[in-house]
């Protein structure tokens, strides 16, 4: 299979992306976002959940949780490039809602085969889900989580947007080293959610403990399925970072045009101008790789792992670089709480270390690109 010249990004995908940008522009402008997630903050405390469930319901009503669900499970089965387009806009809005976690869960469930149909139907019907798959060190694995006779026991870590989701897709050990995937209601008996105090204001994160929690087994061979789904997970996360980086670029450019020092706009000075150009260059690198990876998920499975690793490694670098420059080029005001750049700075710093950082992904790319054909 080969990639279409336009990434298979057809009119429908364009309409979805435009609609999302309009939606966030109208319903979640950045001043509203700041009021929503950055009020009455205690740096030494654990932030309460700060999001707008009513706004999330609107997104669900727009069908966004069913975008990637197959038709036989009641979904729209849109191509991954369309999903990437939507998540780029969600990242541009620094959306505090479980859209990314739900679409990532969808991707993983799709890899799990027909036994996942029921779970996918729940997502198509509007449920929000997140993956419970990291151990205490942040590595993928069940850690202390055990499953037996349809019940879960143990603790998982770094669960993204746990407080906003009604379903957990849980990776648990099944004995003799095998891993399985389980589908659990967030309010199932024996489930307790302990919120982490994190820097990112647009997400929540938690440790989740299970004690004799009833769970539906969806599949075994957890590790194989997980690895099969990694290209989707990396690509979708990249989309969020690319969108956020574009916001950081445009917002800092606007500031550099308006702010005057020495009777000239900041952007006159090459020290600022060239930093912003380098942010643009880095963002474009990540964006081109993003759509190439998403397109490979749709059309070129043989290269999707390689391209998704490139997209994620590039997006993680861009997220860190764009964040630092956005604060630096804003000067003193950029260092204040009321300045909006801090919201994106923190989201990007969080995103870029999820499911492996850039160096980790380049190391895996090296195995693909160098060792693969080592003579």
């Amino acid at each position, binding site marked *: 299979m080969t990639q279409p010249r336009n990434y298979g990004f057809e009119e429908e995908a364009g309409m979805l992306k435009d609609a999302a940008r309009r939606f966030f522009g109208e319903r979640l402008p950045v001043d509203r976002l700041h009021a929503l997630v950055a009020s009455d903050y205690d740096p030494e405390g654990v932030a309460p959940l700060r999001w707008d469930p009513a706004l999330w319901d609107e997104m669900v009503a727009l069908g966004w949780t069913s975008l990637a669900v197959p038709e036989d499970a009641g979904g729209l089965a849109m191509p991954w490039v369309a999903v990437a387009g939507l998540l780029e806009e969600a990242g541009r809005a620094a959306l505090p809602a479980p859209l990314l976690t739900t679409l990532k869960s969808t991707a993983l469930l799709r890899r799990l085969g027909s036994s996942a149909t029921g779970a996918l139907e729940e997502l198509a019907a509007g449920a929000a889900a997140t993956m419970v798959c990291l151990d205490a060190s942040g590595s993928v694995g069940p850690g202390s989580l055990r499953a037996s006779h349809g019940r879960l026991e143990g603790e998982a870590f770094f669960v993204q947007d746990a407080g906003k989701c009604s379903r957990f897709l849980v990776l648990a050990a099944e004995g003799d080293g095998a891993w399985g995937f389980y589908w659990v209601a967030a309010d199932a008996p024996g489930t307790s959610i302990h919120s982490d105090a994190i820097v990112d204001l647009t997400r929540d994160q938690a440790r989740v403990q299970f004690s004799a929690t009833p769970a539906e087994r969806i599949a075994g061979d957890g590790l194989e399925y997980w690895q099969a789904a990694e290209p989707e997970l990396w690509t979708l996360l990249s989309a969020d970072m690319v969108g956020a980086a574009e916001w950081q670029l445009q917002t800092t450019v606007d500031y550099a045009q308006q702010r005057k020092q020495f009777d000239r*706009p900041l952007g006159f000075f090459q020290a600022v*101008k060239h930093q*912003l150009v380098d942010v643009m260059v880095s963002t474009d690198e990540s964006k081109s790789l993003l759509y190439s990876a998403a397109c490979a998920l749709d059309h070129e499975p043989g290269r999707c792992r390689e391209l998704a690793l490139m997209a994620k490694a590039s997006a993680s670098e861009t997220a860190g670089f764009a964040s630092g420059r956005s604060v630096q080029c804003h000067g003193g005001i950029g260092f204040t709480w009321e300045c909006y750049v801090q919201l994106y700075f923190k989201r990007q710093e969080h995103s870029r270390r999820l499911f492996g950082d850039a160096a980790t992904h380049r190391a895996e790319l090296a195995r693909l690109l160098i060792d693969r054909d*080592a003579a």
Partner: protein
Amino acid sequence: MTNPERRDSAEQAEYRAHCRDWLATHHPGEPSVRLPTSALEIMTDEQMDYLRAWQGAAYAAGLVGCDYPEEFGGGGRSDCQRIANEEMLAARTPYFPNIIGLGMAAPTVLHHGSDELKARLLPRLFSGEDIWCQGFSEPGAGSDLASVQTFAERRGDKWVINGHKVWTSLAHFAQWMILLLRTDKGHKYEGLSYFVVPIASALGNGVTVRPLIKMTGETGFNEVLFEDLEVDDSYRLDELGKGWQVAMTTLLFERGAGDLVTPRSGGLKSSSAHTTSARAVMELAQRTARGDGLASEDPLLRDRMVRQAIREEALKEHQRRARVPALIDHPMRLPLQNKLLASELAQDTAALALDVAGPAAGLYLGDEHAPAGGQWPLAYMNSYGITIAAGTSEVQRNILGERVLGLAKSK
């Protein structure tokens, strides 16, 4: 890899088939002479004759200039040159020698020249009978191109040209030059005009071409001196005093951001050819001992090699994304990055190769034990030619910051 055939129009599909058939039987085959990395480094008549013959044959078969109007020697097609380029690349043909003519002179003449000039110049340019060079930079006019001092004084309907141009690649082979000069010393930008000048015929008679030696020790570009060279006013492109606007057209195409696809042949890997690519560095690393193992096992070198591979892939993808309106915010945002990205990528890739080679990186072209025959230090040094020429990387960043991001001009 993307399959270019998808979404060909009927005309493109038919044309692609034609290219493919012709190439199947008319590939010029391995050259008898060693070819340099690019046309800009052509040294010998043997190299030039072989490449010129190939360009002529490709033009005769309709693979060169096919998107140009027929009355000016073109093929009268639309969006087909891309097809021909793709097929020539796939067929691993040699590159075209008239690179400045095809890439810069042709579109500039088409956009700004008189119909009579187009009809006279373009066919011989496409065929390679006339090789072209570019007379822009001067000792005092580098990044600040508009400060050129080469002056043309009016005498009736003739102009008498005096001045000094530098970094003129291929001038020692060229019949024609595109020449930016000054016709009015009173105004910096409005005082510039733009001519096409026959230099081969004037050698020793108003025109002197001297080779310049690069830091690599190679020649390849020249300085060109004009002493009372007389040219006809009909050789002027566009109006008097419009030289700057014409030059902007040339530079736009030089940066790969023009509205016409440049006829491009290539892909031929002769045994002696060298490419500056992440893949080539990885292969070098797999052949290079490091400690008890191989350089390809060094985690830091692996990380850097992969970084280069990522940048290469992205640059390739830019060419595709630039054509998908839904995925670009500004039409020039990606095209104007081409020159900056390609030149800095080449520089960093060559530098990395030297680190991979280790102590042997210092061995040069004349050393039998040099890795890749000494091509890597050569490529690294030549990369500064690319980050400096045709607008330094600093100038490129200004252009991107001002034209794309809309920041205030730095000058």
